[in-house]
Each structure stands twice: as C-alpha cells, then as structure tokens.
C-alpha cells in the first residue's frame, strides 16, 4: 500500500535519515517516538508537504515521490485540529468536496454520511472556535475522510484531549478504521495508545527508524538500547483479568497475580508506571495490596534517577533516585521486594 524507500528529508534544523517502511492495505500503523523524533515530519513527507532529498514514496504500486499533495489522496489530521477558523463546521467538512468539484447531490450524500458516522449533525452551523476539544477532533476527522482518501494520517490525535474525551475519540478511531477499511498512519508518543490501536508499530528516534513490528515484538523484544529505554518508561503486560471468590479482581501474568482496582475479566493489557513502584529490602506492611519478592536483573543509569528492572517474574522496571539506590546498596542479582497499590495498575485494551 504505502512503501517508503530510503527516505531522506532535510529541513535544515531537522533531518530524517534513511527511513524505509512497508505499510499494508487497511493496516492501522503506529509511528511511535519521543517528542522531537521527527514523527510529524515523516507524516507530512508522506503527504507530500515537504520535498524529499532522496528516496521514494510509493502508493498502491505507483510512485508518488514528486506528486503534489492535492493529487495523492492522503488526508491529514493534526493534534490541535487546525480547522479553518473562518468557515462554519459545515464548510470545513465540505472543503475537500468543493476542491474536488463534487456535484451537489454527491456532496449532500457525503456530508450526511460523515455527520452520521461521527454524530456531529448538530454542529454544522457552529464556528470552530465554539467547539470543545473532542468536537473539534471529530470535525477534523470528518473533514479528512469526506474526500474518501486512501490513507488517513493522524498526528497525535489524542494528546490534546482530556482523559475521558481521549477514550471516546480513541474508540471513534478504531471504529472508523473498521468501518472504512482505510489505511491509517497514527503518530504518537504514548505507549498505551500505540498498543491499543496499532496492528504494527514503527519506533522513530532522532530522525531514524529504530524498529518495526507488532506491539508484542517491540515491547518484549526491543532491538536496541533506544527502544528498550523508551519502552522502559512504562511497564506493559498482556494477561488475563479474573474475579476471585474473595471479591478481588486480579491480573494474571507469567504466573503472578496483581490485585487490580477494576471489575473485569478476559485478556487485557495492563500498565504500571515505574515511579509508582517501591523497592525495599524487607516486605512492607502498608495499604498497598501488591507486594512481591524478586531479583534485580538490570540497572539503567539516567543520572539523578535509575531504572531498576526486577524480575518476579514478570519483569517490572522501577524508578529510584540515586540517593536511595546507593543507600539500599542495590545491584544486579540482589533480592528485593517491590510494592505497588492496586490502583496503580492501569487496565486497557
């Protein structure tokens, strides 16, 4: 579907180097990387908004490297929506149809289709600056898909939203992908978002492609120090949630049962922030429900803080300050206890 071959983009202050991607028809493809990694530049290059220095971009078996953006049938949705402020929601939505000189009847049909699909019929006569963040994002999505593009590019679509809206827009994206069968390239710096939505993930750092693979491959088997360090900022597991006769719900992974603050069952993802986990040499008596013995397998020095990986199993990475690291005389192979609250475990799909 989309093939990027050895792409170089030189923007002076920013360079993309030797990027090669092969994205399949109908795939939900995630481009993951820290801020400033060049994710947006890559997206805009695929849309044809930057001249490439070398390399090729192919779309459905046709080379489009030098094709103008308006002829590529690739739509883009930005994080902060970028709606046309001088146009009503309706005129924002139909902008692409006007550019493509769509007939009046077809225009009406498409507008109805999009407003129903996204549930934004009541917003048509509003101005963009009167909309909430979630509404703006829906209008931006509607504007992008109304021209029925072959590829939809979404740049950090969830980052600017509050947690609740984020969940609903995330659902919207998943449904859109299913309903339209469209190829989506989604840029994010958020792991959970990446795992939750992506068929495959490409990790980008410092303008280079670091790793491409399924979420499992990238998180279980990082191929480089960069990906590993990046993955370490979150502990992410796949496992089964189960209700116990005692009334607790547990999350089972690698034979260990975490007590969680959810009422759920079946296969899920769970994440625990490294800074939410305590390390101690003796078991701690506290209100935290999860306390396990384990062995330190790996230490990564980040300056004033360190990531300490403890294997129960599974392996959890914990954030400790240099001061406590030295005081507790932590080192690889040492037996320790790790403690975290049930509410520190975040369950997601």
């Amino acid at each position, binding site marked *: 579907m989309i093939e990027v071959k050895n792409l170089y983009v030189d923007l002076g202050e920013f360079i993309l180097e030797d990027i090669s991607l092969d994205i399949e028809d109908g795939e939900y493809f995630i481009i993951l990387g820290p801020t400033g990694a060049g994710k947006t530049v890559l997206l*805009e290059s695929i*849309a*044809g*908004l930057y001249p490439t220095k070398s390399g090729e971009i192919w779309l459905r078996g046709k080379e489009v490297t030098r094709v*103008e*953006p*308006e002829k*590529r049938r*690739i*739509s*883009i949705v*930005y994080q902060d929506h*970028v709606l*046309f*402020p*001088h146009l009503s929601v309706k005129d924002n939505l139909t*902008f*692409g149809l006007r*550019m*493509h000189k769509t007939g009046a009847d077809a225009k009406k049909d498409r507008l109805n289709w999009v407003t129903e699909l996204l549930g934004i019929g009541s917003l048509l006569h509003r101005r963009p600056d009167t909309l909430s963040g979630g509404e703006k994002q829906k209008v931006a999505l509607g*504007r*992008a898909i109304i*021209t029925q*593009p072959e590829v939809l590019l979404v740049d950090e679509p969830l980052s600017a939203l509050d947690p609740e809206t984020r969940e609903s827009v995330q659902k919207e994206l998943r449904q859109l992908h299913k309903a339209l069968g469209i190829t989506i390239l989604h840029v994010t710096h958020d792991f959970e978002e990446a795992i939750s939505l992506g068929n495959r993930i490409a990790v980008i750092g410092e303008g280079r492609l670091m790793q491409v693979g399924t979420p499992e491959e990238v998180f279980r088997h990082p191929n480089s120090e960069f990906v590993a360090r990046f993955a370490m900022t979150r502990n992410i597991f796949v496992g089964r949630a189960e209700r116990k006769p005692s009334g607790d719900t547990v999350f089972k992974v690698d034979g260990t049962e975490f007590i969680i603050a959810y009422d759920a069952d079946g296969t899920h993802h769970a994440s625990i922030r490294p800074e939410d986990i305590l390390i101690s040499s003796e078991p701690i008596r506290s209100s935290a429900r999860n306390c396990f013995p384990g062995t330190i397998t790996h230490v990564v020095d980040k300056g004033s803080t360190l990531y300490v990986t403890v294997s129960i199993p599974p392996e959890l990475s914990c954030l400790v300050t240099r001061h406590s690291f030295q005081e507790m005389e932590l080192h690889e192979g040492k037996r320790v206890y790790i403690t975290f609250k049930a509410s520190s475990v975040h369950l997601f799909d």
Partner: protein
Amino acid sequence: MFLRKLINNRMALTFFLLGLLIFLFIVIPLAKMIFSSVSEAEILWQTILDPEVTGAIGLTLYAALIATLVGFLLGVPLAYLLARHNFPGKRLIEGLIDVPIVVPHTAAGIALLFVFGQRFFMGKAFQAIGIGFVDSMAGIIIAMLFVSIPFLIDSAKEGFKKVDVRLEKVARTLGASPWQAFFRVSFPLAWRSILAGNIMMWARGISEFGAVIILAYHPMIAPVLVYERFETYGLNYARPIAVLLILVSVLVFIVLRTIAYRGDKS
C-alpha cells in the same frame, strides 16, 4: 472608579499625566484650527465652493487610491513570500522595503525623478508608451506609492504570519492547489491585516507632500495647494484649505477604520 484607581496608583497616575500631555499636543492644534474656522464659517464655505480646492482634494484622494491599488496588487504577493519563506538576503530585503519610511521625502522624490525622469531608461521606456512622470498624475501616484508601500507590505506580512501554515497544508491534502489554498484560506484569514495596511497606505498617500512636489507641482494635490496658498497669500488663505483637508482625511480614516474593525470583537 477609573479616577480613583489612578489616584491610588502613583505609576498609573504619572503615566496618565504624561500621556495626557502628548494627547493634548496632538489634539489642540487640530481642534483650534477647526474651531477657529467654524467662527469664520463664511470663508470655509467659500473654500468648499472653490473648484480649485475641491479639485485638488479630489485629485489627492483619487491618486492615493490608485497608488494603494497598485501597492495591493504588487505588495501582497511580496508580503506573502516574506511571511512564508526563508531565504538568504531576506533580512536585507525586509530592511530595504522599510527605507522609504526613514528617507526624507524630498530626497525620495529626487531619487524617483532620477529614475523616472526623461533621461533615464525607465522614464524613456514609459515615455514611449505615453506615460510621463514629471508634472503628471502618474508622477503623483508613484511618489505616493513609494513613500506609503512599506505600511501595506509590513501589515500584510504580519497578517500572513499569523495564519498557521498547517491550514494551507490541510487545504492542500484536501485537494486544493497552491492558488486555491492561498485564495480560500490564507488570504481571507489575513484580510483584516491587509485591509488595515491598505488604509494606512491610502492615508499616508493622501498626506504626502515632499516626494510629490519634487515630481509634480502640477496637477496640484491638496497638500501642495495649501503650501502654495501659504507661500503666496499667507496664513489666512492657507488655513481654510488645511482645515478642509484635515476634516476630509479624518472622516475617511474614521469610516475606513470602522469598516475594517467591524465585528472585531469575535
């Protein structure tokens, strides 16, 4: 309320008094001239009926309008380029564009005469198609254009800079050509700044004297007429025209600003 706040805040009070001084400095001469003319309404009325005066004012407004239109057609594209692109020498170009603001306008007039006079090739080229710049309408227009174009270019440039470049990018991915992206998105969004620049340019053109008088003493624009009456007949004969010119300028300025800033609250 406002006064009490002022009295309680020493700094605000000081600034208020300083501001009041400069405000009075602007307003008193204008007001004095207008009100003393009202007491001599008869003379003012005669001035309004004087065809030489009305002709000169009409010519001034018209020539400044043409200069503004030329400036609009040639200046807006340049403003867009300067707002959107970085290239070597851009700073130099931006600096040069603003030079007409700082050059004494008589000197600007002489520079223009040098290029558009009959001895230089530009002057000759225009002469060949029947346009002369000495003592002609065309001369008045280029003099006004030269001294007032920086106001339009700077204002339009700032207007385009405020338009998020990604709005154009989105438009392109939705099927707009670069032309359509400009006319459907960037231009309407920068319109207010462009219009404000046009108004400034027109107002600056109307008030121009130095550059015009070097190129074209005749046909006589209103500022030149004021000067001529003052030189030939003295203050009492120059003043009614000056009053009329001020009234017309202020009126036009108010009307245009009202149009430009209408609905600005949104």
